[in-house]
């Protein structure tokens, strides 16, 4: 009886020893440890990005709605139907206008600001903190600040412009209620929000240019513009592309500024693809059509990823 107990204990410890042996073997083998350590992250990404993405593709080929329990495969019907609606065409156009104008402004202004911040001056840390605020603050909340400043009656801009004398006492622009003004306002707020990121990225690039180059150019008598276009811009080009790339992706797929400021109005003149997908798929409950609309965002992402990969490869080679 006791003997039997002894042997079980012994085999038990043997098993335990064998187990720890295998465990330490895994912990020491680079390949297995590597796989083990990366597996949870990969699994998570596959389940929560890969799988939903495939599901979006699948939905867009079906007729699913928010309450339906069954769905049937309808092929490209959703895409065909969506493309033909004037609302979709308008939203696509708005998305392109919104993206290109705001990114062009962000790039030019970001470049100017980065050049200005390259110099050292007193209080620079405070300036940098303030300039970063719009990027770091939750965008939906920052945008509410603008909603108040662009209020149709109590807008502080109206007051200032009236005080300066640009507006007469009867001028009451409704910033968010007239088509062109609304688009302008939405773009302005988006530029406000994205400028910090572009500026800081460009600043990183500018400060990595070796000082000798600037000195050499100065000795050779290069003026400001020549210096800018023949030395500064070519050298920071890869970084500028990265800044534009992220800006494009974030802008093209963003709906927050528009949702808070205009909800796509007036008359859908600020409706973009992302907000249209939200209103159709979630508010309207038509998951299939919403998914189809949102997938029109995808080509831009593929293009961005492609450029990004090329830059990453080039950075590796040099």
């Amino acid at each position: 009886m006791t003997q039997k107990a002894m042997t079980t204990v012994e085999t038990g410890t043997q098993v335990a020893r064998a187990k720890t042996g295998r465990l330490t073997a895994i912990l020491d083998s680079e390949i297995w440890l590597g796989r083990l350590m990366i597996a949870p992250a990969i699994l998570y990404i596959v389940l929560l990005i890969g799988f939903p993405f495939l599901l979006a593709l699948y939905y867009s080929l079906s007729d699913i709605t928010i309450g339906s329990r069954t769905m049937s495969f309808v092929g490209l019907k959703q895409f065909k139907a969506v493309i033909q609606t004037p609302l979709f065409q308008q939203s696509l156009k708005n998305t392109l206008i919104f993206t290109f104008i705001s990114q062009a402004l962000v790039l030019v202004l970001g470049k100017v600001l980065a050049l200005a911040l390259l110099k050292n001056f007193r209080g620079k840390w405070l300036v940098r903190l303030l300039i970063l605020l719009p990027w770091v603050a939750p965008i939906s909340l920052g945008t509410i600040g603008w909603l108040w400043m662009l209020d149709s009656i109590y807008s502080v801009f109206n007051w200032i412009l009236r005080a300066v004398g640009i507006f007469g006492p009867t001028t009451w622009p409704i910033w968010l209620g007239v088509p062109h003004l609304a688009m302008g306002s939405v773009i302005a707020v988006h530029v406000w929000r994205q400028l910090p990121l572009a500026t800081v990225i460009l600043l990183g690039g500018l400060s990595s240019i070796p000082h000798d180059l600037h000195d050499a150019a100065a000795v050779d008598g290069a003026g400001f513009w020549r210096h800018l276009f023949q030395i500064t811009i070519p050298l920071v080009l890869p970084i500028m592309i990265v800044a534009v790339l992220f800006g494009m992706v974030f802008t093209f797929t963003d709906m927050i500024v528009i949702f808070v400021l205009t909800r796509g109005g007036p008359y859908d003149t600020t409706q973009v693809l992302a907000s249209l997908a939200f209103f159709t798929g979630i508010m309207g409950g038509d998951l299939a059509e919403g998914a189809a609309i949102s997938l029109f965002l995808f080509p831009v992402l593929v293009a961005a990823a492609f450029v990004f990969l090329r830059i990453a490869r080039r950075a590796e080679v040099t």
Partner: protein
Amino acid sequence: MPAVLRRLKRLGARGSHFGIVALFTVFAAFPFFWMVVTTFKRTPDLMNTKNNPFLFNQPPTLEHLRVLFFDTLYGRWLWNTAFVGVLVVAITLLLAVPAAYSLARLTGRGGEQLGIGIFLTYLVPPTILFIPLARVVSNLGLKDSLWSLILVYPSFTVPFCTWLLMGFFKAIPRDLEEAAMIDGYSRFGAFVKVVIPLSIAGILTVVIFSLTLVMQEFVYGMTFISFASQYTVSVGVPTFLVRGDVYFWGSLMAACFIASVPIAILYNFFVDRFIAGFTVGAVKG
């Protein structure tokens, strides 16, 4: 004469530099300044177009703050955001730290490609994934629960944080781990005892970065949750406080300012590391 001219020119350059910096600073910070001003103004003062909006035409008040904290769910939303934030940060670290180390040291040349692949999933935006995920969340029984956000938010923190940490781990000299392994640590033990303590700065960056992303997230929060008491602050304020025709501007602006500025100040200390991650070593130039 030329000396005077040169001095004038230098003064002009300095003036225009100051002007540019000042203009941009005002553009960036004015909305936040305006939030503070609005917070302390009485409603009749705000709602009189004859008043100079830059002056306190009536004595300042704390009434809007009282309304915000005692008559709305704002405190609850802040708490919800903190709760989701802490758990998402924990999940992010658990997934991203080992993955990043694996990519930096253990998977060799293929690791680089895999790392870029993981980073690129960061570019897939919520506005493509929210429709299928809404269905997934409701099938899991998580609709209207903060746990839906805790489940989904790491999908945008993990890819970027893995990438960021990979850079940090690569910067640590291999010799240190090898020395630890000669001292009898296993490979994994060397990682825990040597590499992690040396990467605290990187891990802290990832923590701050994840927290800001959680605070900013809007699309998933609005899609998955429709109970006011379960909102996070970035969703609750715009959807619940802005409703109907009556805007409580004072309380709204207070809500926006309080949730925006502290995290921004914290973030400011880490922004350089964060940008280094964004630019993929394109900086090497």
